[in-house]
């Protein structure tokens, strides 16, 4: 067969630019062949992600060609204290690339908008319990700033990772946090149109001044101020999220809302819980690789345990600070102790998956 094609071409040059129009060495090489897929075949995510950020240890012949004034190159392994025998091993569990990211984000935007529109059309915000409206105004309004802080923190962190896979996972995590912070902002502004006297500026005031929120703010600012990007990523998903984020979102807002005639807020907040499941899966995968690294497992485990301890202390103080919130709604359906027990379970299960000590 190959012989025939070859003879035919000798008299008549190939006219088509389509695959299969001629057979010659390399004409069937239709897969990216410079990386090892995680599974049997490369996924679409791997094809568009792996090795886009190069590495002198792989193919970067001429090394990085611009450096910072102290000689640090464009990307450096020294930007985290964690060590790895293969930074390129990690693949994001959620396999996100641009198309899947926009599809998911856009779906959430549509869902949230639909919920809000329907709730407002049916006059629901006017029927929210009055005490609950104040909770939303002051405390959900305060919490949105924590989400924003973590989003900007991860926007910073996505500059530092040693591979494209790590940085993209952190980037999409940042994007989810930013969207949720804005979801809450716009949601509160919209229900504020329907509820007389609703003060959309109150949330920020509580965030900055209310003693209930100062622990959360300190915990958030500690993550934002961390200079190790993996510390930021770990502290967000392994510590802040279970001990403070989920505690407030699931253990308070979502549990309490229905009892206060509010069916809208849980749907808006639920999107963040689904985001977190994906971000958690990605971070568990990354840190598990590092805590089981064939050369650096002990070093990494000790390092991460230190970060866990530091941030868990802050997060525990933050959570305790929030306790008075559970007594504010008129109808009480879920106690702070129950919520905190769930948070601790979550933390324990994360630690056991990654091989870290429960702080």
């Amino acid at each position, binding site marked *: 067969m190959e012989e025939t094609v*070859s003879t035919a*071409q000798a008299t008549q*040059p190939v006219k*088509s*630019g*389509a695959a299969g129009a001629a057979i*010659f*060495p*390399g*004409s*069937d*090489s*239709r*897969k*990216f062949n410079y990386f090892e897929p995680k599974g049997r075949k490369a996924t679409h995510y791997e094809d*568009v992600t792996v*090795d*886009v950020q*190069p590495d002198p240890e792989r*193919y970067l*012949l*001429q090394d*990085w*060609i*611009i450096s*910072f*004034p102290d*000689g640090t190159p*464009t990307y450096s392994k020294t930007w985290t204290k964690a060590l790895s025998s293969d930074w390129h091993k990690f693949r994001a569990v959620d396999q996100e690339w*641009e*198309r899947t990211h*926009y599809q998911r984000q*856009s779906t*959430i*935007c*549509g869902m949230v*908008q639909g919920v809000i*529109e329907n709730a407002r059309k049916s006059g629901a915000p006017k029927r929210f319990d009055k005490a609950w409206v104040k909770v939303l105004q002051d405390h959900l309004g305060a919490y*949105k*700033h924590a989400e*924003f802080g973590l989003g*900007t923190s991860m*926007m*910073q962190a*996505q*500059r*530092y990772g040693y591979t494209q896979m790590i940085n993209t996972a952190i980037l999409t995590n940042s*994007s989810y946090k930013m*969207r949720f912070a*804005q979801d809450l902002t*716009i949601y509160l*502004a*919209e229900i504020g149109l329907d509820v007389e006297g609703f003060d959309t*500026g109150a949330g920020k005031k509580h965030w*900055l001044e209310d003693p209930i929120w100062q622990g959360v703010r300190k915990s958030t*600012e*500690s993550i*934002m*101020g961390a*200079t190790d990007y993996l510390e930021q990523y770990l502290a967000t998903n392994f510590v802040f999220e279970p001990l403070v984020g989920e505690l407030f979102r699931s253990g308070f807002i979502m549990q309490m809302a229905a009892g206060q005639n509010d069916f809208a807020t849980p749907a808006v907040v639920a999107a963040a819980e689904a985001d977190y499941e994906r971000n958690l899966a990605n971070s568990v995968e990354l840190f598990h690789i590092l805590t089981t690294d064939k050369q650096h497992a002990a070093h990494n485990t000790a390092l991460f345990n230190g970060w866990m301890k530091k941030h868990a202390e802050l997060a525990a103080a933050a959570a305790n600070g929030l306790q008075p919130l559970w007594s504010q709604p008129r109808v009480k359906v879920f106690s702070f102790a129950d919520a905190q027990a769930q948070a601790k379970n979550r933390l324990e299960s994360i630690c056991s998956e990654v091989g870290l000590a429960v702080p």
Partner: protein
Amino acid sequence: MAASLTLNKITSQKGISIGEAANRVADLGWTPSYVQEAMTFPTDYKISRVPRDPMKQVLRSYFPMQEEKDNRVYGALDAALRGDMFRNVEPRWIEWMKLFLAIIPFPEISAARSMAMVGRLAPGEELRTGFTMQMVDELRHSTIQMNLKKWYMENYIDPAGFDITEAAFGKCYASTIGRQFAEGFLTGDAITAANIYLTVVAETAFTNTLFVAMPSEAARNGDYALPTVFLSVQSDESRHIGNGHSLLMAMIHDPSNHDLLERDLKYAFWQNHAIVDAAIGTFVEYGTTNRDKTKESYAELWHRWIYEDYYRTYMLPLEKYGVKIHHDDVAAAWDRIVKKDYVHLTAQFFAVGWPVNFWRIEAQTEKDFEWFEHKYPGWYAKFGEFWKWYAKLSKPGETNILFNGDVGYVYPHRCWSCMVPCLIREDFVCDEVDGKMYTYCSEGCRWTHKVAFGGEYKGRPTPAMGRFSGRREWEDCYHGWDLADAIKDLGFVRSDGKTLVPQPHLRFDTKDMWTLDHVRGHTLGSPLRGFRALKAGAERDAAVAEYRKGFTINPVH
């Protein structure tokens, strides 16, 4: 029946305006008081004013808009396949996409990373929302372009070169030039890199030639996919241009920033010109088979997009703030394109170096000659013989043009700054930096390395400014290597272990294809090593004078 009844009217309810939503979103930030954010990417600039976000967009409208844009792109790719695009596509064009698409996803993702660098610098939070969207946009651009490349690999007649794309990006001399462009976005002074170099110059000026002019040429060559993807990419750029301009305006009122602004506008313009015009000029002029004399040449496109659009309507108005604009460089860049044959010399160099490329380049033909002569009078006398040589030496068994002494081509020095070789011979300069001798393609590039990338500027310390590093002369990496061994090390060999990925023609028959054996027996060398070995004074001066005289291509016999 009420004729004016619409779904919108039935479902509409009072909401908050986009402007109000944007204002509320901008109020999400605060000044930390428990723990300060570390300024890990410092700048020597002062930013005293709060920059404003001119776009007033929120993520709730952003994500659905982008998804819609994606749906159009991916739908068009499916339609192109159903319409059998590749049967009619011009391989001459698609081959250059192996180089272009090997380069461009890294600059894109570098732009995403660079948003981290400006995110913390600007006071206020308004623009941070703009930076967030740009960060996600750049992930979009990088992966949508990787997807396009995968699609070409799966459907184009010769996938070799696409299949090794990111490995080739790391190894090829040409993609390193693109990397200089990208690393400039995210290394060194945060404002120099992420604001002036990336958004003010690269995105505002040069994406127009990259993402608007080039796709038009793609369409003329039967490639409808590239315009679909890149015009969609370009539609995000207006937001990025807004981000860049807004941050620039927050700094321009402070006269203490003016020296640095003048330095960076000059450096960024010159380097963008040197890199982007070399590459895109070659793709547009030499990667096409369309020789319609009424279409704009790259020089004409440049005049429209860079001179009129950027220089006259964007840069010149900055003078009213007291910033001195580098008019001479704009004129010099124009002269390099229209009088000094910059693009033609670059295409010639790519062709000479074909054995170490990872794409095919075919010879220009009579039809091409006619068009070039029409658009660039005098072209044939300078380049006609060369391309005839190239066609003649495209058959395996001939001595390849890189080492064929009969041709008369003299291998150039490499510019230490833009990394394009020193192709305009009369502009060649050399200088010492920190006690070492370097070669440059132009005075602008010499200034960039020696002055702009120094530890001080006009007597003022610039501790945040980056430095040039790495093995910047590609030829040095293979100094003393046999050409065949270098190609093997580069990985530019097809799956049979002997046929080269690059070929100096578009013939798809095995018997016409060059193998390692056809190129063995020639030794690569570093021009810079030779130059540095010259004695300072008369010996070196004579070498410089000789280089500046240039060379003459011998008639084809």
